[in-house]
């Protein structure tokens, strides 16, 4: 019916996402002619600042890529170093790193569910506005978020940019009395997290089934966080070292936005993909609760991502309780490591999906080059695909407001973190000087840096062995 009507939907600032992005949508003759999820946060060029750095500076600096998931960056980095140097951390440190990661999942998921996503489903502008009608639910959410923060601070000193992790383990092991107090709080919180899941299951979420490839990690014994292989619903089963052979990041011709493909196709990372690929690693009663609510796994409805977050939040509380219940303070919270040459790739499950790092190190263990692929840049192609399908199915002849709010809601399902995605970018400036940046192929960038053509860019001696220039 829309005939030759042209609708342009511009969302210049996306609210309730982390970082700053925009949505541009044009519809002509009842078809989408332009659809761009634009990211205009300026590039922060992190890989450059890491060159020449020692391991601890890398661990402290990568955290600054994202204030919401600093633990994820530190976990991918520290374990890449330990792999490169053949360091075997003690079981205590392995367990406590899982607890630390649980803290970040709890914090990030609670923040997204309550402050970013839930207002969509209940029709509010913000969580504080929602609190007038749903005070108990919002307060419960903020309490759970606070608990996640406390759990991070127990091992990291503070929740944002924690300071506790080092190669070989931790700098410091918390006193048993503090751990015991935390166990008490976790026991109270698990009841609240259960009630949260029940509440979300009654929300009556929209249904929009789509075909997409799920990508997540997979560990033989546990729900994945810190270690494992990369698997997909298209039967991939990859060592993280082989990431670049199957995952391609590239700039799409129609926009400056980077897309990532798995063997040529868009894919999903994050809580729903993890749940879809690892449901068998969850306690049976959790998956039964979903089945009782009519949710079958694997789910093809992206609106179930809020449910997946609540499931993981409850799981993370139980997992932290399990790992802290017999807490013994070790004599020394780390094992020694000898810095040296080499390199390694590692992947962990950030709250928003797989976070892949690769490091190349010189003979003193200083960084020669780094490549980091965050979840949001991986999801970008899938978000645009979802917008195209979802908006079309919802009807392109709706008014601008309806299209805009559905578009924003679809984007928020992915909990995009634009600070993460812009840690390192190529950019173009438009007429008003605003940088339209495109998440660009990092591998391509690194190759171009290392090629003769651009060798002056690096303070590297092209005749000798590669040596890291001093840490910026």
């Amino acid at each position, binding site marked *: 019916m829309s005939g030759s009507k042209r609708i342009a939907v511009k969302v210049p600032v*996306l*609210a309730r996402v982390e970082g700053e992005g925009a949505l541009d949508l044009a519809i002509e003759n009842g078809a989408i002619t332009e659809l761009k999820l634009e990211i205009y946060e300026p590039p922060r060029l992190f890989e450059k600042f890491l060159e020449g750095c020692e391991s601890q500076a890398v661990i402290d600096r990568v955290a*600054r890529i*994202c204030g919401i998931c600093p633990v994820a960056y530190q976990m991918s980095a520290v374990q890449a170093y330990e792999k490169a140097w053949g360091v075997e951390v003690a079981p205590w440190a392995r367990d406590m790193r899982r607890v630390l990661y649980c803290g970040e999942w709890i914090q990030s998921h609670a923040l997204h569910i309550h402050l970013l996503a839930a207002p969509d489903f209940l029709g509010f502008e913000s969580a504080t506005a929602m609190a007038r009608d749903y005070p108990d639910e919002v307060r419960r959410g*903020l309490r759970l978020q606070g608990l996640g923060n406390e759990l991070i601070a127990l091992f990291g000193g503070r929740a944002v940019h924690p300071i506790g992790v080092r190669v070989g383990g931790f700098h410091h092991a918390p006193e048993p009395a503090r751990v015991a107090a935390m166990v008490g709080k976790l026991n109270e919180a698990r009841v609240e997290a259960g009630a949260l899941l029940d509440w979300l299951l009654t929300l009556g979420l929209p249904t929009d089934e789509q075909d997409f490839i799920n990508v997540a990690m997979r560990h033989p014994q546990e729900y994945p966080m810190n270690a494992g292989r990369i698997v997909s619903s298209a039967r991939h089963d990859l060592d993280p070292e082989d990431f670049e052979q199957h995952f391609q990041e590239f700039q799409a011709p129609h926009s400056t936005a980077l897309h990532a493909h798995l063997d040529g196709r868009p894919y999903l990372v994050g809580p729903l993909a993890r749940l879809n690929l690892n449901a068998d690693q969850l306690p049976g009663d959790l998956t039964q609760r979903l089945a009782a609510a009519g949710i079958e796994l694997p789910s093809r409805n992206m609106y179930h991502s809020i449910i997946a977050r609540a499931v993981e939040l409850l799981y993370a509380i139980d997992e932290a309780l399990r790992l802290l219940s017999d807490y013994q303070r070790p004599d020394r919270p780390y094992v020694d490591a000898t810095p040296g040459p080499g390199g390694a790739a590692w992947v962990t499950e950030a709250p928003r999906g797989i976070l892949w790092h690769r490091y190349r190190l010189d003979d003193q263990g200083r960084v020669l080059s780094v490549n980091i692929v965050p979840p949001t840049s991986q999801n970008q192609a899938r978000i645009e695909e979802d917008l195209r399908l979802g908006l079309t199915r919802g009807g392109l002849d709706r008014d601008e407001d309806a299209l805009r709010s559905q578009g924003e809601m679809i984007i928020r399902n992915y909990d995009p973190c634009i600070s993460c995605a812009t840690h390192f970018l*190529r950019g173009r400036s438009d007429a008003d*000087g605003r940088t339209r940046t495109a998440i660009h192929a990092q591998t391509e960038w690194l190759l*171009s840096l290392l090629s003769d053509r651009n060798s002056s860019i690096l303070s590297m001696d092209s005749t000798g062995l590669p040596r890291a220039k001093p840490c910026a």
Partner: protein
Amino acid sequence: MHETTAKPKVAVHKFSSCDGCQLAFLDMGEDLLTLSAMVDIVHFAEAGMLDADATVDVAFVEGSLNTRHDLKRIQAIRRNSRFLVTIGACATAGGLQALRNFTDADAWHSAVYATPEYLDSLATASPIKSAVHVDLELWGCPVNTRQVTGAVRALLSGVTPAVEQDKVCMECKRQQAVCVMVAKGTPCMGPVTRTGCGALCPRFERGCYACYGPAENPNTDSLSHWFEGLGLLPEQLREQYHGITSQTEPFTAAGNRYRK
């Protein structure tokens, strides 16, 4: 809604950053609801409030200036705000991304950017005070909830906010933390760094890395001498000063002494 118009208006603006300092608000827990009852938060994109051009009593600004568009935005924010408060290392001192200011920007920016005429605006990451007057600076990477709530209360009560200028060393003494430099020979920036974090790193048995920036009257010469005595190489020494708060005068200068 009529009663909300009488409340003081607050905005939270973001420039180039990790979003971590805005979390000082979002991580308040239930106090966030108390705050939103006390003040009218009119712009805070991550929390869902969008009114970037509103006139406000207090504007909190996160992030550093990196583009020409940023410069226009910050001028407008300044005009619309009674008090402008920077939160965190990026807004106050340029932050970690300001390390680009030390690089040979021309060489690699021309390899990166497609539109060279805008390169000037992108060659450096600058603190907010490089463009507009700042009424209050809150240091830290990140700032914490205590700092931002303290600033709100002080400004709205007409009281000059108390600003920490002590060195981390003083906080270690107050917390009865063992000095990592004296006891273990671990390099620590505590003697020249502003406190406010609660001496987190020394209490976790590691050296401070200066995320709260320089303290009042920092004696960097003496500290560098200590670091040399501990066996740090020039490039390791420079890394101590040229980190998160590299664009502060004392740390820029102290680090530059060890540049090759």
